[in-house]
């Protein structure tokens, strides 16, 4: 499978993603410069972390107007899998591919540390390798991860099982103390209503192999790969 990793000016986790796709998963990873307007030949798209356009104005606010984002929107609307990590998540929010917005962390600090997240929905192409309720230890590194949306949208996210990851204690309990940034309902990651676009603040690409002392993040990439393989077995694969 061929994973496209979008590179914006200021992306800094693109190479980590490319490393995981190629060295850990043994798949093809293709860097895609933000000025590209076509994603032909790519099976899934990753928007990596970083500080696209220096986070000027708001995180992701300028990157969302990059030429490549038109192609990403088309790719997503045709059912293609899109994963946004950290700044990638922020860009997906600004682009309207996921609902809501990011506020400054409640503590006002840039937080860089391991956190625990609970897999709330394992029946997605991004979490098929997980069990529902499984706890993953994955690092976060952000200043704007305080997820916010209006009460109507939050209710819809909850009702449609679109909240995929929530900050929790190591034992899986979702508590206010386990929430590192003030995020609404302890939200660490959500998907769109169709289920093919996922955004999360933690960085699974930073902990996807044993040599780093933690490979909890690998399940997300393995899940994506499995979903792509299953979809490719079907003619006219649009179902993911």
């Amino acid at each position, binding site marked *: 499978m061929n994973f496209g990793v979008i590179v914006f000016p200021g992306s800094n986790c693109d190479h980590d993603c490319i490393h995981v796709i190629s060295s850990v998963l043994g798949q093809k990873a293709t860097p895609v410069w933000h000025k590209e307007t076509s994603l032909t030949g790519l099976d899934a798209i990753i928007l990596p972390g970083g500080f696209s356009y220096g986070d000027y104005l708001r995180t992701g606010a300028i990157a969302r107007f990059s030429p490549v984002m038109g192609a990403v929107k088309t790719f997503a609307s045709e059912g293609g899998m899109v994963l946004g990590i950290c700044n990638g998540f922020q860009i997906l929010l600004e682009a309207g591919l996921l609902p809501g917005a990011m*506020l400054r962390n409640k503590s*006002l600090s840039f937080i860089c540390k391991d956190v625990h997240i609970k897999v709330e929905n394992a029946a997605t192409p991004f979490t098929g390798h997980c069990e529902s309720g499984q706890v993953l230890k994955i690092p976060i590194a952000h200043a704007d991860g305080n997820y916010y949306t209006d009460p109507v949208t939050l209710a819809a996210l909850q009702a449609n099982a679109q909240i995929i990851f929530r900050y929790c204690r190591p034992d899986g309990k979702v508590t206010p103390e386990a929430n590192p940034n003030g995020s609404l309902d302890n939200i660490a990651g959500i998907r769109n209503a169709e289920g093919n676009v996922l955004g999360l603040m933690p960085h699974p690409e930073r902990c996807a192999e044993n040599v780093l002392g933690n490979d909890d993040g690998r399940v997300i990439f393995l899940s994506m790969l499995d979903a792509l393989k299953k979809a490719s077995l079907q003619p006219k694969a649009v179902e993911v």
Partner: protein
Amino acid sequence: MKAKIHITLKSGILDPQGKAIEHALETLGFKNASNVRMGKYLELDLRETTQDRAEAEVKAMCEKLLANTIIEEYRYELNT
């Protein structure tokens, strides 16, 4: 024409920076300050001489890029 644009978080949305500033003011003895809201201020020159069209353009800029209307509100002044 010059546009002066103010963007702040909507009322009701927690503004951690505003809170921190309010706390600092209080610590410094400014006990009368409350409800501090932190925002952004932008100035720009507009090659447009008609008030109505200038206003429509600035509004479009705010809606499309300058403010995220999920969390922010904006106001602007236009001066010739």
